[in-house]
């Protein structure tokens, strides 16, 4: 069933109290934690009303955990699904708030505001502020530019600034009343405080009028409910006597506070994480220091999961060298110790997962200063050659940003290399909105033949088993053309069936049955058109989608449109269709319950290139991995020529306004408003260190995705002035030295 390694044994034999586990990449922490959960459930010590609570970071991990625990329990002869609960922090907060919504002024049917609507609210208030405070923005605009010419950049930036301020304030549990103390402090000569506070206040009012909360509110409210009600907290402590937390290095301040409260002083809490893989810290209150501090607490039992069978010895050596370099050789003192021990150890003899045989010749750290385009071409060519020879192997290209991924996708497409995207909004996200938009378009224009065809094709493409492959596309198109030539649309929406023989067009029976399937759905939905739009959308999606992500997203879209409807009572179907279309095109990322990065198993796609960001690659592994664009722009190290994306080029003095604003918020939390009168720019410099540290960890995450083969490249950037990232340079030199011997 499960043969534990040293370290894992201690974890699965956990009997209670607080435990902290540092786990290196590939050490099987999810597996170990799932087994521990199953063992605790099977021990029979849980009462009927008790559950093991497993908290993890993203929805994909929830599914992964749930299925593993279920598998173990089934093997133990127990029924799955009973005695444990797997949740993301948002899911957990939802469970808590759902039980006592009245306590914080909500009712059972409160809605959750999505990013799109939130941005719409922000847009309005940011524009108003910009209009009234032009001189401030002129003062902060870089001397090389005129404010008027940079209006759009400022608008986009200020919206993000406000959104992140609100998010952070909520993480710190600061209400607009609290932030007003900052805004009213006359000694603070930083106008963006008044800006951010004002937007926050208006934003909260807008939420209230809509009977909505956002995701950060959900967590804040959950914490507030528990804090206000010790009896309820006590009941939940009884219900969840053991908390198992995964990815604890990315735990935010409020997550830690919430779990600490749920656990209680003498509670049972196991936190597993890898501080070296903390990569979600920018713009959040997450901090790997929180986990390190926990590990230092006196009553916490500490274990390391340091054995990993994932990668070859060479790859492990590289990753460990990066840790050593960070500890001892990093030229910037403030960044030393960004990565810490334990180092990765290969598995011991007898371990069921032995490391792959070493292939040092399959490590290639390319020193060539490629141009941005050349890098794409080089990688695409390399893949074009490699894939046909390795069709049973898995391969991924990790890109630092979504845009870079899209560029690579284009190049691969050009070279005819099969690939799969895993970028910001995954394809299904865009598809769901687009499919619904197409169906709605037909319901708006039921007499347009083109709308009918598009809707039919959309329906078929939404179904895994009916999807029309490229080869079949022509046949389908032909069949639809023939059909529409012979029949008026109203005839296709009636009960009477179609006489295919009569058309004499030699259409394949499979195509006919597909068309009839989609046609039946349209026939059904035409009568749903009189329903309110959210119900119409849900009715359609219930028929179309099976994937939880798709369903959740479709619901989210339904809520979104419903919100639109309540704000604009005159809106009708065409308006909703417009809105859906713009979502499909603008690629809004939708997060939280409908997070689209559902469970992804790279092993299902051998012979196909997976394009993913470094961030999204976390937790995954491939036989061969390319890390691209590893230059000092994407992975800066506080060197002279490094540039920082948070220091906007159109803002004067390389100011990182976000960092400046955050520093003020933090001072407010520490009730230390006097400190806030410090000079502008200090926080910007401090933020550079944090950013460089996070990017170094991100690089480490990238390295450790590879099982057997690793290729790293870099490019000189858009303006041709970027250089090889410092850590890559250090690794490459070390690698060349050690292989020279």
């Amino acid at each position, binding site marked *: 069933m499960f043969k534990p390694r040293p370290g894992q044994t201690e974890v699965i034999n956990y009997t209670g109290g607080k435990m902290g586990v540092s786990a290196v990449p590939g050490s099987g922490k999810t597996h170990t934690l799932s087994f521990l959960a199953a063992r605790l459930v099977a021990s029979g010590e849980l009462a009927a*009303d008790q559950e093991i609570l497993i908290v993890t970071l993203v929805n994909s991990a929830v599914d992964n955990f749930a299925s593993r625990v279920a598998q173990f329990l089934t093997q133990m002869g127990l029924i799955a699904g009973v005695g444990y609960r797997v949740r993301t922090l948002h899911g957990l907060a939802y469970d808590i708030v759902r039980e006592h919504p009245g306590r914080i002024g909500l009712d059972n049917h409160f809605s959750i505001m999505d990013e799109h609507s939130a941005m719409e609210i922000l847009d309005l208030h940011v524009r108003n502020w910009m209009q009234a405070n032009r001189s401030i923005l002129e003062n902060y605009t870089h001397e090389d530019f005129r404010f008027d010419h940079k209006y759009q950049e400022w608008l986009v930036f200020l919206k993000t600034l406000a959104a992140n301020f609100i998010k952070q304030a909520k993480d710190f549990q600061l209400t607009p009343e609290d932030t007003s103390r900052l805004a009213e402090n006359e000694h603070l000569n930083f106008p963006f405080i008044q800006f951010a506070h004002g937007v926050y206040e208006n934003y909260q009012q807008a939420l209230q009028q809509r009977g909505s909360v956002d995701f950060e509110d959900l967590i804040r409210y959950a914490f507030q409910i528990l804090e206000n009600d010790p009896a309820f907290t006590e009941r939940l402590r009884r219900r969840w006597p053991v908390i198992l937390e995964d990815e604890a290095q990315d735990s935010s301040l409020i997550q830690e506070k919430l779990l600490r409260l749920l656990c209680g002083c003498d509670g049972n809490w196991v936190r597993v994480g890898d501080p070296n893989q903390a990569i979600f810290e920018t713009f959040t209150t997450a901090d790997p220091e929180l986990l390190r501090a926990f590990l230092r607490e006196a009553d916490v039992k500490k274990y390391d999961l340091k054995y990993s069978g994932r990668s070859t010895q060479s790859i492990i050596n590289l990753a460990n060298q990066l840790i050593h370099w960070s500890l001892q050789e990093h030229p910037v003192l403030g960044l030393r110790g960004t990565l810490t021990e334990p180092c990765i150890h290969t598995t011991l003899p007898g371990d069921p997962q032995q490391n792959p045989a070493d292939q040092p010749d399959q490590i290639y750290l390319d020193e060539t200063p490629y141009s941005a385009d050349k890098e794409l071409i080089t990688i695409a060519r390399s893949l074009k050659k490699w894939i046909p020879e390795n069709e049973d192997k898995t391969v991924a290209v990790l890109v630092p940003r979504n845009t870079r991924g899209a560029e690579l996708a284009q190049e691969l497409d050009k070279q005819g290399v099969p690939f799969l995207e895993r970028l910001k909004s995954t394809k299904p996200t865009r598809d769901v909105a687009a499919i619904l938009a197409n169906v709605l378009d037909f319901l708006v224009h039921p007499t347009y033949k083109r709308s009918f065809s598009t809707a039919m094709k959309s329906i078929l493409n939404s179904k895994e088993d009916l999807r029309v492959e490229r080869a079949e596309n022509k046949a389908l198109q032909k069949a639809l053309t023939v059909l529409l030539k012979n029949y*008026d649309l109203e005839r296709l929406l009636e009960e009477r069936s179609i006489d295919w023989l009569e058309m004499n067009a030699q259409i394949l029976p499979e195509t006919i049955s597909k068309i009839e399937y989609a046609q039946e759905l349209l026939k059904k939905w035409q009568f749903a058109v009189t329903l*309110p739009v959210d119900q119409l959308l849900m009715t359609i999606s*219930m028929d179309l989608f099976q994937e939880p992500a798709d369903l959740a997203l479709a619901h989210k879209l339904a809520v979104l449109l419903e919100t639109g409807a309540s704000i604009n009572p005159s809106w009708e179907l065409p308006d909703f269709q417009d809105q859906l279309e713009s979502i499909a095109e603008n690629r809004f990322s939708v997060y939280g*319950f409908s997070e689209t990065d559902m469970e992804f198993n790279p092993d299902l796609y051998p012979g196909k290139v997976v394009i993913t960001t470094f961030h999204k690659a976390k937790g995954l592994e491939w036989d061969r991995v390319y890390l691209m664009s590893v230059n000092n722009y994407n992975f800066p190290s506080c060197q002279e020529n490094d540039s920082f994306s948070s220091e906007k080029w159109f803002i004067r003095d390389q100011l990182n306004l976000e960092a400046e604003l955050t520093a003020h918020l933090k001072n407010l939390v520490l009730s230390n408003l006097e400190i806030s009168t410090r000079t502008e720019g200090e926080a910007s410099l401090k933020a550079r260190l944090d950013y460089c540290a996070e990017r170094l960890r991100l690089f480490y995450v990238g390295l450790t995705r590879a099982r057997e083969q690793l290729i790293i490249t870099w490019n000189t950037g858009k303006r041709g002035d970027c250089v090889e990232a410092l850590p890559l340079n250090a690794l490459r030199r070390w690698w060349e030295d050690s292989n020279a011997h």
Partner: protein
Amino acid sequence: MAAPSEPVPPSINFMDPIRYSKEQLAVIDHPASEPLFIEGPAMSGKTTAAIARLANLLKEQTSSRVLILTPQKSLAKPYFDFLSQQSEFKGSHPSILTISGLARLLVEKFWLLFSGQAGFGKPFEKPHFLSLETAQYVLSKISEPYFKQGYFHSVVIERSRLLSQILDNLNKSALVPFPPEEISSRLNLAAGIDPPIRIAFDQAQECALNFRKYCLQHNLLDFSLLIETFRKHAWGTPPCKDYFYSSFQAIVADNIEEDFPVSHDFLREWLHTKRAVTLIYDQGGGYRSFLGADPQNAYKLKDEWESVITFRDQFRQPKPLGVLRIALNTSIQFDKLKSMSPSIRQAYEVSSYQFYPQMISDVCEKIFHLVETEHTHPADIVILAPYLSDALKFSLSQNLSQKRIPHTSSRPSRMYLVHPVIRALITYAKMAYTNWPLPITRLEARNALLTSIPGLDIARADLIVQTLFSEDEKRFRSFDSMTNPVTQERISFQVGEKLENLRQWLGDEYSDMDDTPLDIFISAFYGELLSQKGYKLFEDLEAANTVHQLAQSIQKFRQFSTDYLNLSLSQANVEYIRTLQEGLLPSSFLEQEMEFESALRIEPAHTFLMENRPCDYQFWLDIGSMGWWERLNQPLTNPYLLRRNPFETRQWNDVDEFQSNQQSMLRVVEGLIRRCGKKVFLNAVHVNEYGTEQRGPLLRAVQALQKHLIQIERPDDV
């Protein structure tokens, strides 16, 4: 004396053919002029016996001197059925009333005797009784300035819900009763409330008191003031009491567990004035607690009744269902499950699905099997859910229609304007009332057609609107005026004829529509055309019900706004539409009458329980939903704190809340299973229709039961 073997009249008995039980005979034989307290579980035949006794009583008494009191109209159905079959009465029909019906009768009759003393501003003018809608309307007008001042900023709910909670608090103050000045302090007894919400409690009370003051000044009686006036003033005037006592010699109060403390007080008083008061108490009940019903208080009455007859057993329910009831009861309370008869498996079936659509199609498939293969009558099947979203209802309905299974559903709390039938009627009204300043869009016109003409597909409807509808004139042109014969043919002459009828009715029947009350128009248009054979709403009983409600609501609003707000008829019509768009709730909340005895029903569990009828097969949907457990959570009200004798010395805390939710779920589960004749189908779904996973207590209880049964059946494996 009735012979023990005599069968019960089938008309009043759903468990036909049965014979009277020992307890039933005791009830029937109990002297008609003597008070009696009957208690027992649901479906044990209490009402059946009480009706048989009523039949005896009517032989002796003048029937008009009998008062039958029930908490709501749906619970009086067996009595209505019985009386409708009696051809001869001594005197007139007995009265069947609710406490508010009685209050209204007496308040109206004796108004002049107490109106001045009760503090009404116009004691010599007639009172006006507000419906829930008009009350909400008045309250919204009164509260407007407060909202502008920033009241309720901490409460994240829609305006209409907020207003209804303020009214709800007032209603409870009248029904319990307690002074409305206590509302805030009582709500403040709840623990764990965020401080800003406590301020909102004070604000809610302030608005309530202002509303009360306004009502008194203007002779407006909302539900709360009606009850209060009746209890404190009308009943205190000797002529009123005399009138009541001379009118009613015998009183039968059924389902007192669903009635309010104030009703219980009257029952007690009537007993003490030597009336033959028969009380019927359902032991498992209390489903209206959230409205102010108080089963504990009802049960206290038992001490004062000398004769008590207790029913023990349920009639003819198969044993396995009894085993299931006890097992779930144990499991919900986290008690240890004991060994149980394996026959329990016959009583229920659990199915788990990943998604809603799978659950819906599978449930409908099973129903089809029951109806087709096992020849179950659709009326013997019910689909139950804690909440019934429109999307769910729609999907179920579509699926059942495809299988040609007659079905119907009720959904009392739905907002008016989202109802397609109502939207269609409003669109037609906008066509008829040419002077209204309200535009009609093409899609509105298209939807109206789709809702009225059967078999009309969306493409033809769109063609009609494209070619015949004029947004400027706000009407359809004549079908015959079409110049393009191809389009005419595509639309079809059959549809054209229907359209022509619609057009003519709208144009001809009421040419000068502005002087016609909107409710009259709606009723006539629906009654004379849309509900007729050949139109889509023909035999659509749910639509009939909806339209009836709408017309009543408009009528009440019209009478009120023309009499008390001095609006012209035309203004009242338009103002109604405007108010509708702001989100009104139906006044007849939980008062819907459904008489669809040949159809399968899709209902919220609570509605089904309040109809108090058995059903062979029950399909419970989404047993993971928290809705099976939790109370309706409304931030500005709390049914437990606004009841009689809340604890004065301590707070209402999470333990109380938890316990009351547990009790509520126990009551629902027990009540449902007691009303089941053959089998319960429990359906769990992993991801609910909102895309979130729910693991509510009912699911967990069922899982614990399943786990236990597996252990019993396969002890070696574990």
